[in-house]
Structures are given as C-alpha cells and as structure tokens.
C-alpha cells in the first residue's frame, strides 16, 4: 500500500427521502468526523462516498445498520492556487495511460484537495509518478 493511500467508504443508498440523513445522523451520533462527502446519484439509487476520521468504526456502524458498503483506496492532491493545478494531475495520469475513474474536490478552512480514484492496478504507478512531479500528494486528510 502506498503511503498516499486514503481510505474512502462507498455506500449504496436508495434514492428516497431521509436516506442521507439516516447515515449522517448515525455518524454524528457516533462522533465520527466527516472529512468529505460526495454523492453521485441516479433516479433510483446513489453512491455516497465518504472520507472520515475512522473508517473501520464507520464501516462497522453502517454494516450493523444494514447498509451495503465497500472501502476503496483513493489519493488526494493538494489544491494549489494556480490555473492548471488540476490539469497538471490529469495530464500526468493521461500521458501514462492511467485511467481516472472519478474525481471530486474537498475543502477545509486552510486548504483544499482533489480526490482521485484510479484502477487498483494503476494505483502505485500513479502515486509514484505524481509524488515525483511538482504535484503535492497528501498522506492523510
């Protein structure tokens, strides 16, 4: 596992009233801190991607409450405030034939980051290439 591996939880949720708050209230009740939340949806269901301070407890809590979820590995590149900072990352990936599965951004008070998901087989290669470039990869969120 690369030192840049960040564990993300992907939860399958049905597209119905109260689903999201069911999950977030569970996390809040269990004092889990949400670092990032990203929801992709279709008319019937969605996938909720979460970065939290304690993945294993979160997984246990959601499992126990009947949610179907999986832990995925992603990496994060710090947002540098210049034009093309996102482009720098995707160019390196694309030039090296690494397919980007999805991406989203997160922010906090001090700075922000892009979250990237690539295929498992490409993970090491991608983080190695990026850490050698001027892109700054985060070791944790």
């Amino acid at each position, binding site marked *: 596992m690369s030192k840049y591996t960040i564990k993300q939880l992907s939860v399958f949720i049905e597209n119905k009233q109260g689903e999201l708050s069911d999950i977030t209230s569970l996390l809040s009740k269990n004092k889990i801190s949400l670092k990032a939340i990203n929801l992709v949806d*279709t008319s019937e269901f969605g*996938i909720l991607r979460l970065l939290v301070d304690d993945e294993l407890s979160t997984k246990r809590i959601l499992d126990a409450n*009947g*949610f*179907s*979820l*999986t832990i995925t590995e992603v990496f994060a590149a710090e947002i540098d405030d210049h034009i093309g900072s996102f482009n720098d990352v995707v160019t390196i990936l694309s030039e090296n034939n690494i397919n980007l*599965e999805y991406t989203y951004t997160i922010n906090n008070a001090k700075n922000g980051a892009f979250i990237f998901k690539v295929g498992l087989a490409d993970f090491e290669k991608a983080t190695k290439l990026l850490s050698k470039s001027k892109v700054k990869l985060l070791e944790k969120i």
Partner: protein
Amino acid sequence: MIWNKVESSSLESLRKLQTKRLKETIKRVYTLTPFYKKKFDELGINPKDIKSIEDISKLPFTKKQDLRDHYPFGLFTVPMSQVIRVHSSSGTTGKPTVVGYTEHDMDVWDEVMARVFKMAGTTEEDIVHNAYGYGLFTGGLGLHNGAAKVKATVIPSSGGFTDRQVMLMKDFGATILASTPSFALHMAESASKAGIDYKKDFKLKAGIFGAEPTSKGLKKEVSKVWGIDYHEIYGLSEIIGPGVSCSCKHSDLLHIFEDHFYPEIIDSKTGEILPDGERGELVITSLTKQALPIIRYRTGDITSLKREPCACGRTMVRMESVVGRADDMMIINGVNIYPSQIEHVISQTEGLTINYQIVVSKKGHLDALDILIEISDDVMIDSISEIENIKKSIQHNLLNNLYINANVKLVEPRSIERSVGKAIRIIDKRE
C-alpha cells in the same frame, strides 16, 4: 435410511395395494357422503365400475370450493365422535378449508412423517428444531409427530421470535431444522448479525423445508449458508398435511408416498391426464383417509412426475419441486411465468440476495413488471456503472431465459419486508 419396506415395493404389488385401497375409498365416499353420491350418479359411475387403479380417470375431480361449500364438516365420512383432530387453512381467500382426522388417519400421518424424518437421516440421537407454526396450520404438529415417531428429541419452537430461535438452536444443539426455507434464511441472517459462527456454533446436519414453492437457487442458498443437506417436504392439509412427499439426499425429486396418496398430473385447463415428465397440475386421491377421504383433489400445484428409479432404493414415483401454483401463474404480456422461475434467474446473478419482490402493474395496455431485489452486503460497489451492470445483467438474463422485460430496481440489504411464514413475493396491481 428407509422407514417402511413398502417404500421400495415392486410396481405390481403397489398397484395391487392401490387398487384395493381405491375401491374401499370409493365405496366409502359413495355410501357416506351425499356430495360424492350425487357427483358419481350424475356421471353414471357406480363404485363397482372401478376395477383397477387405472379406472381412477373416470372419477370426478374435487376442488377447494367443494370443501368450502360444505364448511365446516360436510364432507366428513365419520361422526364427530370419531374425529380426534381438526386442522384448517388460514382462509385468506375465503372460508377456510377444514379437515379432520380419525385415530387411524393420525397413525397414517405419523407413519408418512416418520418416513420423511428417516429420509433426512433422523435417529433417536437427533434434536429436531421445529420452527413450523403450531396450531390450526398442519405444519407444526405434522412435523412434530413424525419426529416423535422416530424417537428424536423435538423442540416445538413454532414460528416467529427469530433471534430467540437462533439462540435455542445453538444452545440446545439442534441437528435437524424443520422450517420454511425463507425462515431458514431469515434465521441465518439473524445469526450472522449476532456474530455467530455456523461451522463452530451449530450442529445442524440436515433440514426439512417446505410450505412454499422454492427455486433451486434458494435451496442451494439455504443449504450453503447453514452447511446442511436440504430435504424438501411437500403436502397439503386437504390430503393429510406435510408428508405427501419428500426428497432424499440423492436428488431434488420428491418421493411420493403413493401407497396412501395417488398422484396424477393433469392439464389445468382441459382436465386431461398428462404423461410422466410433463408439467401440469397435481391431482391427488387419498387412498387410506377415513375422516375426510378426497377423490382426485386438484391441488393447484404445478409439477411433473418422474418414474426413474432412485439411488436410495425407494421405488415410488417422484415429483419435481413445485414450480408454482396453477393460480399463481402470472401472465405477463401473454407469457406464462411462475415466480420461482424469476427467483431462479435472480439466484444465478452475482451481487444479489434471494430477497425480492415482484410487482405487476398495467402501463397503458401492457403489463409492466418491476422486480425489487436486495443487493448483497458484501457486493463491492464504488461506481454507478457497477450497479448498472448488475441491473443490466439480471434484466438480460430474465429476457434471455424467460422472455420477459422487467424493470429491475436494486434496493438496500434487508429493506424488503421479511415474513416469518410464507414469503410474499408477488404484488399484482392489475385489475
């Protein structure tokens, strides 16, 4: 293990026995019930005309409605003083059907249930956890008496209280489970939620499952999750209760105890008898019943008969697992479908559980089929396309195997309501 040597008798001696018993039964119903006398007379049949078991095709059918019309005891052929037990259906679709048993009938029932328990390898060392409902439903007490007859220890836990049942099964060291297959799965879910290790914590070796039509996939799932031999039992209260037939460990086919229950397969629409191997409605004549003998009872269950010999040594005819109910058959845009066929396709698709619900509705002039299926807990999903793929694959399989277009909706694990008895699989919203 074979309980009674009659189970492996020659066809010739079996036919002789059946003929003798049919003649007695015909005489009995003709002389003792106005209903059958009238029916026979109308068709110009005299009991003397029935010379061999093959003549059975001359006899009229009996339908569920006939029992309802004579509610509660109108078809009984003995005075109530000789009736020692009464059972009844739930009556969800009208008046309940009521059945009665004399002491002799109870002995027959215990006998066929003992055969079932022996088929599942039960000895007096075994502990039978009986989770069939006790009461007017024949399941609980039927299984109970059979287990007692082979001198096993019976735990009469009845239905419901899933968590407690799991605890009892573990603590009492049950070796044989008797329940509906959907309840067996439900208990497995509950056990795994409680962090119980099947291999270590349970001693189950076999299960006797029935009371609902079950696909191969569901059977495999139950047998896999509990790590046990799956014995399917079939029966219906109008004939005796559970114990009409049961599968041994050699195949999925169910041995019919045809020395007591004579089976035929007919075309539901025309009433014509179909040859062995062809699917149709199962019709059963009780050959030894005293309190409520029934002639050519239309069970409504769709199955077929197979006459090849079985490795276990039993020679009586076998039936395939019931595919569905004649009245359960859905016609979706002109295609005949049984829920169990859909269930089978679901069970073949990765990433899904066997918990599903079929909703049929009208969209304009066409029938629309929505199928809700729970995705499994351990499916690794991180993208919409993976879910879309599961959806597409099941829709493709349904179209390919059953020629139906269905809208599949994947839902969260455990979001479809669980039933403790028979699972509710179809919701038909059409007029």
